[in-house]
């Protein structure tokens, strides 16, 4: 993946800025080694590394990128492509400036509190007016940068909202801060005036903490998307010209060369050569598999040994790995029902609280109260529904990020809501509960053919199929097939030497059910106009399946198994895993209606599958998850994708979704309760401004911190 590895920009002073991602940076020592080594190169002006995002930035003058790259490679690292994400850059800048604002507000708050406490401590006996004025002037000096630098972010947002004709949460916040500051300014000027600098500073500081955490949550989220992109090279070596070409410019059918140590740049079929390929990114299986001519490979898998020519089959945006990243991005757009409602209410809410605050002010003014303006301000602060508007979105952002790390890519946040309600899981058999690594056990020939002839025909037919079954015949590939067709969930058919062969379940092959030979496993029939041979395949149960089902049973979940295979094989697997409810010989449509029937009897069903034949069932199920799919169709149908084929993670997912719902309920309850409780008190004039500031900012902080409890998905011990 040599020279497409990085983004390089040339600066005005002839300084070349190189940015790259080094996925195998795993600790501080790695970053320090890279820094040390690069700094020794002449021509390197500045090196910066970031452990968290695994990025390296180098400024060089007078030397080429290749020099820097080979230096890093010599250290044993493999620099990868890195697209500078404008969004991520902006977010990083925003975090930094937010940190500066937060720091200034924090320091300011501490100082102002100190001056305020001196005055409070003096109590009723009073402090000498000269000292009190000194404290007030000092507080004013400290509060000015807080109000005009730290809080400026609120005014900017508020101004943007007003210009757009909306009223966001920042409008009342800005009014409160500026009005509080102005009232205090008047207080400093007059002889016995009250000041509220401490409240203003505290309000600003605590609100900024909430914003800062929220910003970091969002940044982590985008960091993750970036990491999932890094493993695919952005350029590929064309077979014809031996030149490196941008993958985006390749046409379907283009042939590229992939050598040992390189990462597959495209989804396609091997046309020449063989290689040991690790599909770690998709299956979690680190053991390399041998891939030969005619077999599919996925972009992002690593070619460890060998040399292959790969023909690109689909456009880059349909690469499985790109689809995964896209699904993950899509999940940002989702707004849970409640958040939508909160957004809609918020608009009116802001108008209502402005009205409420002015009414309270007018009432107390007419009643002759001295501090009518302060009461109005207190009402304004206390009634701000910031916490309510943060309650759900923050929780979902944290949850989706955590799930991504856990190995579950969620397409919509709604998935988490739905999984929490699941009480029944329906599993596909082959490839889901079992490993789908089928081995050929036996061939029972019915007509005058040899075993080899049967297998050659089957192998030729299965070339068109992507079903795990087809893998068992990968060694038999000599005959050419015409009009080959794969009927999803049933079998394959095609013309070989002008004879139409059908291979699959008996009902598919000859149109009627005939008795299978004795013996465990899957029996498939090869037929022309008459039955020719039975082929017996055996599949192994996926490790973790049994433990998962046991966990489901003990936690009150129902489960069942649907399979397109024969009754005897279904029986065997069901007995191994002690599944009471299973249905065999099902077509994709039957799977679908079986789920609909279950749903009619008040079951909330999640479909767990892996192949195209489960897509329809996934569509009707309440929730659906695909286990390390190799087809974008399956990814499209399922709402979530389990990246590493570790089925026991489903237990963790079910458990976690309940936790997410719980946290969201707590957040909403707290936010609503806070507003309902404190608004009457504020209107009655029973709240001090600092109490209002504390209450309001703490309620925001509470929901954000509560949401960050969801940071990690606990692996359930099975």
């Amino acid at each position: 993946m040599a020279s497409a590895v990085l983004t390089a920009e040339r600066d005005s002073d002839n300084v070349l800025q190189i940015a790259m991602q080094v996925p195998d940076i795993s600790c501080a020592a790695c970053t320090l080694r890279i820094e040390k080594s690069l700094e020794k190169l002449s021509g390197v002006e500045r090196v910066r590394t970031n452990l968290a995002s695994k990025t390296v930035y180098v400024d060089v003058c007078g030397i080429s990128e290749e020099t820097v790259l080979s230096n890093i490679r010599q250290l044993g690292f493999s620099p990868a492509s890195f697209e500078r994400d404008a969004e991520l850059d902006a977010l990083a800048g925003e975090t930094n400036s937010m940190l500066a604002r937060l720091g200034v507000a924090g320091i300011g708050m501490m100082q102002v509190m100190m001056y305020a406490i001196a005055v409070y401590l003096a109590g009723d006996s009073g402090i000498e007016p000269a000292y009190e004025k000194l404290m007030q002037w000092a507080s004013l000096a400290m509060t000015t940068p807080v109000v005009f630098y730290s809080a400026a972010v609120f005014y900017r947002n508020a101004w943007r909202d007003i210009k757009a004709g909306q009223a966001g949460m920042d409008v009342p916040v800005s009014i409160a801060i500026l009005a509080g500051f102005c009232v205090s300014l008047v207080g400093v000027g007059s002889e016995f005036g009250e000041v509220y600098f401490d409240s203003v500073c505290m309000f600003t500081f605590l609100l900024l903490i909430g914003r800062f955490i929220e910003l970091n949550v969002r940044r982590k989220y985008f960091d993750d998307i970036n990491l999932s992109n890094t493993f695919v090279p952005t350029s590929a070596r064309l077979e014809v010209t031996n030149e490196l070409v941008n993958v985006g410019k390749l046409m379907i059918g283009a042939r590229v060369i992939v050598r040992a140590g390189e990462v597959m740049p495209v989804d396609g079929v091997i046309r020449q050569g063989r290689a040991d390929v690790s599909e770690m990114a998709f299956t979690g299986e680190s053991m390399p598999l041998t891939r030969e001519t005619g077999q599919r490979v996925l972009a992002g898998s690593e070619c460890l040994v060998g040399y292959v020519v790969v023909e690109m089959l689909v456009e880059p945006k349909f690469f499985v790995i790109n689809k995964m990243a896209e699904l993950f991005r899509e999940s940002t757009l989702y707004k849970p029902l409640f958040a939508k409602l909160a957004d809609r209410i918020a608009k009116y809410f802001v108008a209502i609280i402005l009205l409420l605050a002015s009414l309270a002010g007018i009432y107390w003014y007419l009643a002759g109260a001295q501090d009518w303006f302060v009461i109005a301000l207190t009402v304004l602060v206390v009634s701000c529904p910031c916490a309510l508007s943060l309650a759900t979105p923050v929780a979902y952002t944290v949850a989706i990020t955590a799930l991504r790390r856990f190995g579950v890519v969620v397409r919509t946040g709604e998935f988490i809501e739905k999984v929490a309600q699941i009480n029944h899981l329906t599993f596909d058999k082959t490839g889901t509960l079992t490993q789908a690594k089928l081995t050929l056990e036996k061939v029972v020939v019915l007509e005058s053919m040899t075993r080899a002839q049967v297998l050659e025909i089957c192998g030729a037919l299965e070339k068109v199929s992507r079903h795990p079954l087809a893998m068992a015949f990968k060694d038999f590939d000599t005959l050419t097939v015409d009009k080959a067709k794969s009927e999803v969930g049933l079998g394959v058919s095609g013309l070989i030497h002008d004879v139409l062969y059908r291979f699959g379940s008996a009902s598919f092959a000859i149109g009627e059910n005939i008795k299978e030979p004795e013996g465990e496993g899957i029996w498939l029939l090869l037929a022309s106009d008459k039955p020719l041979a039975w082929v017996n395949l055996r599949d192994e149960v996926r490790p973790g399946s049994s433990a998962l089902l046991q966990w489901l049973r003990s936690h009150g979940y129902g489960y069942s198994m649907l399979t397109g295979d024969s009754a005897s094989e279904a029986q065997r697997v069901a007995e191994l895993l002690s599944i009471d409810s299973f249905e065999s010989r099902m077509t994709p449509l039957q799977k679908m209606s079986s789920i609909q029937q279950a749903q009619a009897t008040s079951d909330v069903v999640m479909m767990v599958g892996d192949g195209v034949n489960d897509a329809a069932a996934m569509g009707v199920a309440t929730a659906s998850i695909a286990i390390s799919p190799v087809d974008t169709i399956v990814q499209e149908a399922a709402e979530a994708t389990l990246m590493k084929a570790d089925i026991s993670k489903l237990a963790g997912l079910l458990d976690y979704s309940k936790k997410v719902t719980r946290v969201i309920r707590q957040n909403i309850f707290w936010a609503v309760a806070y507003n309902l409780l404190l608004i009457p008190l504020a209107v009655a004039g029973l709240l001090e401004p600092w109490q209002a500031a504390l209450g309001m900012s703490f309620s925001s902080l509470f929901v954000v911190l509560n949401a960050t409890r969801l940071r990690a998905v606990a692996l359930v011990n099975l």
Partner: protein
Amino acid sequence: MEGVFMLIPVSLVIVFMVITVFVWSVKNGQYEDLDKEAQRILFDDDELDIDTTPSPNPKTKDN
């Protein structure tokens, strides 16, 4: 107690210096990667002094 009239302005000056230094350090990117700096102390400097000339076994790396 007259000293207060002197000390409070002095404290203000110090605080503004602190603020300036803090804002400078944030803008300078000192807070961008806290993990690395936290772990740096665990590694000896000379251990990291590696030869950049090609080594017989360039694939080795320590994790």
